[in-house]
């Protein structure tokens, strides 16, 4: 006589039933959560997939998969169109703008959060109002100013312009982050003998890491993608940045989709990497900065 061994899953052991209810629950969860998320993911990722397909398949191929793989388009954008130089320029402008935006926003945000002074609210409103002015409207005044300063055709014009345009939102966000750090902690450090500056570096700054990352990444990505300023303030081939290079692939009568896609991949890599590294800070950072002010 064969011995039948019945094994039960822990849940079944606990409830003593075959547990159809959790399965229904699972189905509900799949319908409500997983399917919409998968659909959204497909909707988001399909353009990226096509970009990669166009970038990696040979010219003239209409295959839905990038096979055989070719790197000719990357060679075209990197060597012929000049992405090697454009990429370097974008990195310089992006990093410098990130640095200046973060540092100035940190100082401005700290002042707005910790000090009460006349005109503080008006200043905050003015910062918000600057967000309504489109960059294109400021082109000619900025051009004239930079011309007077001898900054036309210099990467510094982009660093300055992008930093200035990044600052209002960054300062508002940063003041929210600073407010989230209790002032009592800073006071305790000062009671222990720290100067205000030392207390800031020792106690406040380490707690602002999510905020610094959120503000810095926004500044970097905004600067990295800025086409208008890069085209208008620069009239020297070797000083253009990636977005200008990307637009070179669309001519008056033709478009090199392979090169356009390869350029898109090159342009997207740093942004994707930045998001991959910072995403866990970013969600927390944005919510912390947004709800407290």
């Amino acid at each position, binding site marked *: 006589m064969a011995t039948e061994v019945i094994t039960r899953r822990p849940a079944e052991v606990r409830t003593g039933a075959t547990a159809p209810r959790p399965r229904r629950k699972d189905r509900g969860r799949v319908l409500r959560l997983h399917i919409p998320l998968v659909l959204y993911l497909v909707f988001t990722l399909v353009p990226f997939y096509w970009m990669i397909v166009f970038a990696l398949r040979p010219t003239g191929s209409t295959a839905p998969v990038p096979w055989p793989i070719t790197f000719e388009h990357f060679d075209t954008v990197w060597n012929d*169109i000049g992405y090697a130089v454009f990429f370097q320029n974008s990195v310089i402008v992006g990093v410098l703008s990130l640095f200046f935006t973060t540092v100035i926003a940190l100082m401005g945000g700290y002042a707005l959060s910790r000090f009460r002074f006349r005109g503080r609210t008006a200043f905050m409103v003015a910062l918000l109002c600057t967000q309504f002015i489109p960059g294109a409207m400021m082109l000619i005044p900025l051009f*004239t100013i930079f011309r007077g300063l001898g900054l036309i055709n210099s990467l510094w014009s982009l660093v300055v312009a992008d930093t200035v345009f990044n600052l209002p939102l960054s300062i508002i966000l940063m003041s929210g982050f600073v407010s989230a750090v209790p002032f009592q902690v800073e006071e305790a450090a000062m009671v222990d003998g720290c100067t205000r500056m030392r207390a800031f570096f020792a106690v406040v700054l380490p707690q602002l890491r999510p905020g610094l990352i959120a503000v810095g990444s926004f500044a970097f990505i905004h600067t990295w993608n800025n086409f208008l300023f890069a085209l208008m303030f620069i009239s020297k081939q070797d000083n253009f940045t990636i977005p200008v290079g990307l637009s070179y692939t*669309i001519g008056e*009568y033709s478009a090199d989709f392979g090169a356009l896609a390869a350029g898109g991949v090159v342009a997207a890599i740093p942004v994707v990497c930045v998001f991959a590294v910072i995403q866990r800070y970013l969600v927390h950072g944005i919510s912390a900065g947004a709800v407290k002010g």
Partner: protein
Amino acid sequence: MRTIKKVCTAAVAVLALSATATACGSDSGSGSGGSDKTTITFWDNNGGVRTPIYQELIKRFEKANPTIHVEYVGIPIASVQQKYDTAVAGGETPDVGGVTTSYLANLTGQQALEPADDWLAKSQANGKLLDSMLTSVKETTPDGKLYLVPATSNLDVVWYQKEKLSAAGVEAPKTWDDFFSSVDKLTKAPDQYGWTIRGGAGSIFQLLAEAYAYSGVTEFFDSSGKSTVNDPKNVELVTKIAALYKKNTPEADVTNDFPKMVAQFTSGKVAMMHHNLGSYNDHVKAFGADKIDAYPMPVGESGKRTIVANPVDGFAVFKNSKNKEAAWKFVDFLVSKESNSYWNQQTGQIPANKEAQADSWLDERPYLKNAVEVLGDPGTTVVSPPYYLPQFSAITKADTEPLFQKVLLGQMKPQEFLDTMATKLTEAQAEWKKSHS
């Protein structure tokens, strides 16, 4: 303490980057450098695709003129007008710029360009540039002066896949009746369509080229200054084209701009496509030179060949240039027989230099030879669009492109669409006449 160290490290890194950014800093641009060389800046109005062609020409020019250095800047075509406008407003224009008649009036309106008439009278190019292109340029500006030295032009043609036409027993249509019956024969939806409509950006220019070729109307405005766009024959053509939508064309055509339209054609799904000579290289890449050909716009009931002039592309010297002599020398070189022939051979367009038009490479490209013959044929009537109107671009783009989409979708009658466009053009023409009387 560790935080302070991190901040210091970041500061040092930023300083290093700042030094690099400063090293990539501004320089004087044009002018005489420390050496004896004169530097002139040249802005290419279609940077990217044409960059290697200009780099080669600049190399040749600098070899022939060792005292002049040309600094090339490629401007993306989509933003060239905005770039010029900002540069003019900021007083930082190049010495020489690539300019087309589409925005020439805008630049001359800002008094940014140097007239070329005196230079041309003394130049080697005098008498060698195609008269129709010179006329087209002069008609664009209110004072009738030559502000743009023509280098090339284009012609609207219908590209077709030879194999698809011969499989359907169809020959390249010569008349519009032939055309519509060919489109029907070539359509085997949804696998193959006989035609594709440009319904998105840039649709109006192509539609007008088709309408005037069909109607045989020879002027954009009649003697009283009223636009001829809504001529009954033009309305008839637009109605016929709209009737092809979805029946003989892909449904996605309603949003087709030129890259999408060309991509559709090069995917092999569409047998015939209206574009201009400029997309030749795309078709060759996709099919091979022996698999494609082009025919000029068919002839309407009038029997007269009527073509709408494409924008003339050429070079202009800017008023702000500090090195006008070197700048004109460069322009002179660019429109010389050798340079003009090389440039147009590479881009597949029509040379402005008559001597270059006689070069043997044109014989190897029948579609281009045909185009040159069509342009040179005394029986061809060229309808010049009013590029000089400051509102022309807005009227034929932002104002009426969405209306044509409505026509394709059956939400607007072709008559109403063309009446709207005609009213706007008539008003703009009257305003222009008033300000220049």
